């Protein structure tokens, strides 16, 4: 009797403490860089795509490589014949993770919030010159454009939808709820932010939203909790992956770590051709860069072969024109510039004869946190010295450089960066980098101006037929390369270390494979 009592008590305790056969949560440790905050409208960079893809939804979404647009919150769209009105039909019964219904008014609110905040995500919509966004009914969103804009559909995924009802009580003054949404979530995505342990740019926990509209039928063992840990040091990140302390690394795995990771049984190196071009910008408005021969001299003086072959160990593909090689519209017959110091010298001599001040000190800014930009700068500096050009390297940061590029006089002589796949259309690269109407933005920071190119690019964004647009972009690209507006180096092969127990990783150039809902653990 006494024994039975103890058994009953033990059983009751076990039930009370949840010691029964409960479903074990699957937990993944994500070791990629985190964005500065988690407001989806405050940032638009590679780290913020982790939030935008997982915590929020958009009307249409890119999937796969090459990336294709798929209906997402919207089930379909219609465009008027003149290309100025676009209507999106939302799926029925959509809800936010909070349980609130998601309606067309929330899309309108989200658009207005993006434009009012005027941060990076507003850029593509400003270029599209949208006259109004309205909700004729609860399931329809209408975008009215001032003029036809062919890349419009491709920029639609940039708009992530937030829950107005959830944000409104937290708005303070004119902050649009940023103070709250920067460390909380108000989305409908496959995961929600757990604000309790959130430390900006250090640690962030996401919990699965079982009610996500897309359902979980595609993934029978989805990850329940994702613990994102931003590990600043590359060596620590790589070692943590080998040791099994994290399940996935960042998409900027240095090429010198690839061979080391490939030897590890528990780690797989994901290698995917992306659409992220590496470019050395030249401020075309400043002498001697206003001289085309000088710019050609610089273009011949960069050692593309050694940089890609030796420093990057061929984990990149030479890309000599201002858009990714694997994108439609790329000019197939453009050869670009090769490394040839004799040709460089000849072009510099011509520039000097024309009075260009080629002997002045040239400042080349690189990004302090990104080693590869420094390596490119040092290689370039040493070769330019051989032809008598004096280049000094300046350590800088992304916020400083993008702020400096607002005016031609403050924009650096030269600076190095990547242009990532924010949306998939030549407009994302050549269109916004070399049309002079975008002067003052970081993308157009070379202050290149050519009336013929302006005309071609503006025509290309106004015509809906892709065949004709391809011809126009190719022609514009040839001219820009001829003018040596910048130095285009390579298209990125994204490298990411992933634990062998992570299955279902799917890469897309938009978001670098950051979408969690596909993944499970073995």
């Amino acid at each position: 009797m006494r024994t039975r009592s103890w058994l009953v008590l033990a059983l009751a305790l076990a039930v009370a403490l949840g010691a029964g056969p409960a479903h074990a949560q699957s937990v993944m440790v994500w070791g990629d860089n985190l964005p500065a905050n988690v407001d989806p409208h405050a940032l638009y960079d590679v780290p913020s795509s982790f939030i935008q893809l997982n915590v929020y939804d958009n009307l249409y979404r890119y999937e796969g490589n090459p990336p294709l647009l798929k209906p997402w919150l919207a089930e379909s769209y219609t465009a008027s014949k003149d290309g100025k009105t676009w209507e999106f039909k939302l799926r029925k019964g959509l809800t936010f993770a909070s349980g609130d219904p998601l309606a067309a008014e929330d899309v309108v609110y989200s658009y207005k919030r993006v434009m009012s905040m005027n941060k990076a995500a507003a850029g593509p919509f400003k270029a599209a010159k949208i006259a109004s966004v309205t909700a004729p009914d609860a399931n329809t969103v209408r975008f009215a454009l001032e003029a036809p804009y062919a890349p419009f559909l491709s920029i639609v995924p940039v708009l992530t939808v937030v829950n107005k009802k959830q944000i409104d009580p937290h708005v303070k003054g004119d902050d649009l709820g940023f103070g709250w949404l920067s460390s909380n979530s108000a989305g409908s995505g496959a995961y929600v932010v757990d604000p309790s342990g959130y430390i900006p740019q250090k640690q962030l926990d996401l919990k699965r939203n079982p009610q996500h509209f897309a359902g979980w039928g595609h993934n029978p063992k989805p990850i329940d909790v994702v613990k994102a840990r931003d590990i600043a040091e590359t060596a620590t990140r790589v070692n943590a992956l080998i040791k099994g302390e994290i399940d996935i690394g960042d998409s900027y795995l240095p090429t010198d770590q690839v061979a080391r990771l490939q030897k590890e049984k528990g780690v797989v190196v994901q290698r995917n051709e992306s659409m992220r071009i590496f470019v050395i910008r030249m401020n075309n408005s400043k002498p001697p860069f206003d001289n085309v021969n000088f710019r050609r001299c610089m273009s011949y003086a960069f050692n593309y072969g050694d940089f890609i072959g030796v420093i990057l160990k061929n984990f990149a593909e030479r890309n000599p024109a201002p858009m990714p090689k694997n994108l439609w519209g790329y000019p197939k017959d453009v050869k670009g510039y090769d490394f040839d110091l004799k040709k460089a010298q000849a072009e510099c001599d011509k520039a000097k004869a024309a009075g260009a001040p080629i002997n002045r000190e040239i400042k080349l800014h690189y990004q302090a946190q990104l080693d590869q930009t420094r390596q490119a700068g040092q290689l370039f500096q040493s070769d330019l010295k051989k032809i008598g050009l004096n280049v000094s390297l300046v350590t800088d940061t992304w916020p400083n450089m993008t702020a400096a590029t607002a005016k031609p006089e403050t924009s650096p002589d030269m600076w190095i960066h990547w242009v990532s796949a924010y949306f998939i259309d030549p407009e994302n690269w050549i269109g916004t980098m070399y049309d002079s109407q975008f002067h003052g933005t970081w993308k157009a920071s070379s202050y290149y101006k050519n009336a013929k190119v302006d005309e071609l690019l503006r025509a290309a964004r106004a015509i809906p037929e892709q065949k004709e647009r391809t011809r126009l972009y190719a022609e514009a690209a040839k001219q820009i390369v001829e003018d040596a507006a910048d130095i285009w180096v390579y298209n990125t092969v994204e490298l990411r270390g992933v634990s062998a127990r992570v299955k279902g990783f799917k890469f897309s150039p938009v978001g670098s494979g950051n979408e969690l809902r596909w993944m499970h653990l073995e």
Partner: protein
Amino acid sequence: MLRFLVRRVLLVLPVLFGLLVLTFILVRIVPNDPSAALAGQNATPQQITEIRAKYGFDRPLIIQFFVYLKQVAQGDFGTSIQSGRPVVTDIGQRLPATLELTFAALGLGVFLGVPLGTLAAVRHNRMLDHVVRFFTVGGIAIASFWLAIMLQLLFAMQLDVLPLRGRLSAIMDAPPTITGLYLFDSLVTGRFDIFWNALHHITLPAITLSFGSLATITRFTRSGVLETLQKEYVQYETAVGYPRWLLVSVYVLRNSVVATVTQIGLLFGALLAGSIVVEAIYDWPGIGSYAVLAIFTSDYKAILAMTLLVGVIYAAVNILVDVIHGVIDPRVAEQM
């Protein structure tokens, strides 16, 4: 004693004011435009101008400084441009991690350095003394980033006995917050599993951070004890047959550690600064990485608050050191 404390606190205020002035000027004279950082990447020059006017960045620097000073006096340190949260919240969340690591490193330095220095002095010019001197020179010379990577490779990667990074295993939740110091909080709440996990995680970073201070404390203690051992009263007590261990541990040591205690105060500042490197390598979520991010992103409110905070901590520790001086040496207490 109370008068002494009030006097010391009053003396610290102008130092902190000077620190704030210097940092404010340094942050604002570097060619970073906080208005541009606030405006974001798409802002037009017109919008940047509007933000400059809205936040008062177009006013004379001295006016801006006094506006900031007034805000600080009211406890308002501003909002981080990057995280969108009050910088006090950001720092408050990270400070316990740095303090825990610093205290652990200092604790290691004191509890190993004082006995080692004493032993080296007692065994002057013998094998133990030579070994200690060899390691203390190494401790001062070795760069912490190198030592950190070596310790990681040996103990975390090769021997697999300690974790590589972080304050806790990712799958383990933090203990209920009392102080934010995981070791303390987990002990107080009886979560020994968390305590054990946190202890494992802090071991390598604390050893790395303590290495330089351990060397300094050992050397200062050794010198102090050696000097005291030459004093007449020590020779007299030795001659009358006082037990050697009692003589050294009770009388000699107390009269030898005044300089060591001063060093500990100075070392605390060095440890706070040194934690930036150690935190980066061990992925320790403290204020070091926050400071680096603030500098890289021109988050000037965060930079100013961080500098002031470190200044306050440094000043507080040094006042504490002065008080400890008084406790150790009654002659100092009389002058207080």
